[in-house]
């Protein structure tokens, strides 16, 4: 199958089940909402070393937020409920509670499983905190030097979230790979229920499980896709490919990832790109398989 002259390889991306939360941060203006969100989502590219994956889902208008202020929606993913709760408490406590003018709300109100991050953080108020129930939801007013920070008591957990969606852009040169990856990120940006946790949405250091030469590593460079190793390892790169970039996606459900992959791949099929492929572990890593050709066929643009 080719899409605008770019080969879509007959393979699939392999995803695994994760736990996810949606955090809504509001502030007096977009600048401060973004500041908090950027800090919140820092060092959250991969569960391999960051214990969680997080990114900004999209900006929110005042009409979309509980307190009618500008806001940012963040998605946070972790491997289990306990870890998700800890990451929420750590990150809200260090990046939202500390940030001028911000409040923090749950973005998954319908989820019955809850992480009581606000309840955990209320003790920062040293028993001067005050709880208020508004619309059936409990919030904590935590006194801070600026005035008060408002934290929702608990955050909904999506138990069937999906991590590990991905596709690789195989290009003739680094500039072409970057341009294609940027186009893919732009196409995906703002879609509901999906994030790209790596810097600018792009990963250059795709990994394989474990390592050939270091037993203690849980992940190491994906040598089959490193162009510099074409002659020294079992390369998976077609002739003429000199640079590869990866788009990694986490989503609240399968459909969010499928839609984002389709739009991203469509945008990445541009001059200088030879092929699109995906990373998988033969179906051993997780239950979710995103077959590239099936995804693109749904969009109707590939042939």
């Amino acid at each position, binding site marked *: 199958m080719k899409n605008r002259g770019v080969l879509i390889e007959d393979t699939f991306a392999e995803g695994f089940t994760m736990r996810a939360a949606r955090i809504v941060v509001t502030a007096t203006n977009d600048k401060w909402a973004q500041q908090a969100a950027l800090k919140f989502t820092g060092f959250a590219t991969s569960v391999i070393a960051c214990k969680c994956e997080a990114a900004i889902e999209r900006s929110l208008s005042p009409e979309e937020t509980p307190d009618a202020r500008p806001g940012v929606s963040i998605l946070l993913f972790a491997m289990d409920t306990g870890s998700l709760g800890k990451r929420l408490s750590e990150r809200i406590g260090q990046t939202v509670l500390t940030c001028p003018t911000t409040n923090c709300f749950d973005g998954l109100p319908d989820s019955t499983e809850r992480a009581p991050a606000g309840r955990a953080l209320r003790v920062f108020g040293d028993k001067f905190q005050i709880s208020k*129930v508004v619309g059936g939801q409990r*919030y904590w007013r935590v006194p801070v030097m600026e005035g008060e920070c408002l934290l929702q008591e608990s955050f909904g957990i999506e138990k069937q979230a999906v991590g590990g969606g991905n596709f690789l852009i195989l290009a003739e040169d680094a500039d072409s790979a970057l341009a294609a990856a940027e186009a893919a990120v732009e196409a995906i940006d703002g879609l509901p229920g999906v994030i790209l946790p790596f810097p600018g949405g792009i990963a250059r250091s795709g990994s394989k499980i474990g390592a050939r030469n270091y037993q203690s590593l849980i992940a190491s460079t994906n040598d089959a896709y490193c162009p510099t190793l074409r002659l020294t390892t079992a390369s998976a790169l077609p002739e003429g490919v000199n640079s590869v970039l990866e788009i990694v996606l986490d989503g609240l459900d399968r459909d969010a990832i499928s839609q984002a992959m389709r739009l991203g791949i469509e945008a990445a099929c541009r001059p200088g790109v030879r092929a699109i492929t995906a990373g998988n572990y033969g179906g051993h890593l997780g239950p979710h398989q995103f077959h590239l050709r099936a995804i693109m066929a749904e969009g109707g643009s590939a042939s």
Partner: protein
Amino acid sequence: MSDTVTLSLRAPLDGGVAGLDVDGVTADRLAGLAEREIAALPVWLDARRAELGDFFSVRGERSDRVRVEGALAQVHGIAAGTTGGEMVIDGDAGRRVAAKMTGGSVEVRGSVADEAGATMGGGTLLVTGNAGDRLGAAVRGAFKGMTGGEIVIGGSAGADVAARARRGLVVVAGNAGRHAARAMIAGTLLVLGRTGAEPGHASKRGTIIAVGGIEIPITYWHACTFRPPHVRLMLTYLRRRYRMAIDDRAADGAYRRYCGDAGDHGRGEILEWAAQ
């Protein structure tokens, strides 16, 4: 099963009676009853036992959506003890509307007399008109007033609103009478109009949000002037949920925080809108 059960008071009660007490006639209770069973529910005319059907015509059955209509000002305890379902009361109602309510919703398209929502534990009570004394408060002799839920009054409320309230939200779009939030234990009273004399007397905790003016008791002291984020959240919620007309400046603005009551634990607060 009907879409709605309608209870229509056949005729206004004789002015010579103290009133008809229909405590326990609730939407959740009617949801499981046939028309004749509803008509047979016990009510009290002064101290005499009677049946609901003696005074009301009943249309519909087995529905948790109930409409009550007629000259109801002498009918007391409508929706008292509600645990679920929806009840609409069309017209002015008597005392203790939705008292002891723990769930569901009650909407009064008119005014209510004293002790509406008294000792309420959950659910929502919406009154388009005015409310009498002890709205959301403790009934006489009780230690606690409302312990949860929401009361929204489109007009004004009488004395002792939210007295001894333990939790919950009481919103008065008009004015509130004297002794508002007296001996409040916790919870929130929001008054968009003028708050009457001696508010928050003997309050242990809890919040009075005074948008339309308040005379701060001398037993409260000024802590600071700031923008309380929960007030903005609350006002935004009320706008969206109940379509209340609330001045943007009240949602965006700063409030003077007073702490008290000094005669008690002193952890209550009055947030007075600093209008400028």
